[in-house]
């Protein structure tokens, strides 16, 4: 589904990302881990054409991301709070996104109903603007908005950060369900090794912009990751 080849991004001679090749098949739940500055957000930004690659390219469903915009209808994402429109209420925001993705109100309402317990009664019908919600609740709204319109690729940057434990567990169930039963390709990044190993079938470790590990998740993966990162600490 997503083919990356010879991709690199350089800021002032400082190469922050260099991926020779990375192939993410359809329906895979894909996890990206790495320390700060490893290049996770840079990769996602390149995937969304928010920044331009220095060399190479990414193909999303055979569409060259930095040349055509045809990947947009089936790709959705939540990277940070700048994906929210602060002066809308959550409902208005969902309907707006829905409209951009060709969904009518009933469709959106239908989807939102499935997330009632995820929202925990703190998002909908609160008569509050998104900018007045807490960080965690903003994140919930942003993540759910990324699920509107049956996207085939969903990109979530640090989805577990700022969420309370209950919501983290619910979110894990949602992501698993998307990849396993609906065939959605889910890309997430996280600092939390436990969550990633719980959710993702495959985990790639980035270090200083390069892929240093590419693992198929198994029983041993968490241990391996922990050893890797404590090793990185020792170095």
């Amino acid at each position, binding site marked *: 589904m997503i083919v990356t080849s010879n991709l690199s991004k350089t800021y002032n001679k400082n190469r922050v990302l260099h991926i020779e090749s990375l192939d993410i098949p359809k329906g895979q739940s894909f996890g990206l881990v790495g320390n700060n500055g490893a290049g996770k957000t840079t990769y996602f930004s390149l995937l*969304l*054409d*928010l*920044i*331009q690659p220095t060399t190479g390219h990414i193909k999303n469903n055979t569409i060259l991301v930095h040349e055509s915009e045809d990947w*947009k*209808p089936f*790709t*959705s*994402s939540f*990277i*940070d709070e*700048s*994906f*929210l*429109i*602060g*002066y*809308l*209420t959550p*409902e*208005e925001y969902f309907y*707006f*996104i829905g*409209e*951009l*993705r*060709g969904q009518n109100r009933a469709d959106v309402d239908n989807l939102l109903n499935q997330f009632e317990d995820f929202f925990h009664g703190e998002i909908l019908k609160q*008569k*509050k*603007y998104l*900018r*007045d919600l807490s960080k965690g609740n903003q994140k919930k709204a942003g993540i759910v908005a990324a699920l509107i*319109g049956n996207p085939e690729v969903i990109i979530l940057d640090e989805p577990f950060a700022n969420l309370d434990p209950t919501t983290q567990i619910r979110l894990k169930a949602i992501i698993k369900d998307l990849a396993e039963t609906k065939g959605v390709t889910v890309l997430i990044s996280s600092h939390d090794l436990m969550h990633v190993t719980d959710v993702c079938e495959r985990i790639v470790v980035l270090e200083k912009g390069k892929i240093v590990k590419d693992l198929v998740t198994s029983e041993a993966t968490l241990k391996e990751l922990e050893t890797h990162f404590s090793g990185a600490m020792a170095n």
Partner: protein
Amino acid sequence: MIKHFLNLEWKQFFRSASFGKGLALKILMVFLALYFMVTFLAIGVALYPILKKAFPEDDPFIIVNNFIFYWIIADLLIRFFFQKLPVMTVKPLLTLPIKRSKVINYVLGKSSLSFFNFLPLFAIIPFGIVLLFNGYNSIEVLIWMLLLLLITQIINFLNFIVESLTAESEVSFLPLILVSGSLFALNYFEVVSFSYGLSNAIIATIKQPILMVVPMTLLAVLYWCNYKLLKSKLYLDNSLQSKTQEVKTSEMEWTRRFGDVAPFMQLDLKLIWRNKRPRSSVFILVIGLLYGLFFYPNPIYKDMAFMYGFIGVFVTGIFLINFGQFIPAWDSGYYKLLMSQNIKYQDYLRSKYVLMAMSVVILFVLSIPYVYFGWKILLAHFAAAIYNIGVNTHVILFAGSFNRKKIDLNQRAAFNYQGTGAVQWLLGIPLMLLPIGIFSIFHFLINFEAGIASLVLCGILGIVFHQKLMVFITSKYLDSKHKMISAFSQDN
């Protein structure tokens, strides 16, 4: 401690992300400052001889004192719009072992060294010296100069109190204008003569230096008030706990008839109505609409028909100019979202176009009463409206593709210059001067009707080629997409 504060500010200035970009504006400000300094210096030196010549019977010193009241009012107004309390990034300091009072005293102390306080000295000191040369009592002159220095400081701290009291509302400047206007009127129509009262008080103080205690106490009280105000604001819960507004939603079904553009139009309308800064552009509409009243009743402009074109463009285009100059910076807060969403750029831009074109039509209709001042005015407004719809909308959208400054929607509305860059300064030329030029040329070469016709023709051409122009403009936006994303995600 002050050394640390100064060091922090120095770094903040030179390391800010927009340092290079803002430099041109800063240089302009320096030139402006120099200009004012020289002007004030010239006034200070020349005032005495000029007054002596113009009013040989009166004492120039008394005349100047009579004017101090007006100076105070004017100074207060100017400061209100242009002087801001020095800003300090205070949050990181709160948890460090620094006394709050130190931070406050530093901020207030810095404000009293503001350029606004030095500027009057450039006039006061040379005037005082001239007085000395003309044989005034040297002690009295010195006391007078000291007194005026105190007055500038009093104005300085009074201004911050006024500002902080009115900062919350969009129309914050109205009460101040009302109060100072009525003070001025009371004085002007000699109901209460503040200017003579003040003048007498000043002269009394010069004769009886002990009276200096009065302005000194006043200054101390004002400083203390400022201190209290700032202290109450120095707690985090003020900045963290945002006031949650009760939401009023409306469906805005009528926008549906614009088809694909509808979601963006709803978004734009909500943007305007729910955020302080764009909302203020709605209030400016009223001022813009009344702008013609400054000119039309005045017989001087009766024969200057080319002014009609200018005022027409301004009156019918005030919203267009005000709102349009910051496209797409209004959406800078969530620009990444728009760019990664499934949107057609052209629809996004067309929604702005429709909004601006509608505003022009509405403003034209509202400006019809100007017909009272003559049919020609109505005709000129009509032509200007067509020109605005056909040409200026496209010009302003095109200029928007050069916009690289983000706007924080929640900031104070009136007289906020955030997001203003070279684009906004240059934009005035094609937007205002071009139509005036076209109109004047045809007006002088042929006649008034030809001027009108040329504006209408330009406008119609723009409307006819609307689709083509939009395709071109859209391509410009697409070209600068990545630059905009990176610029909008930087803090100023």
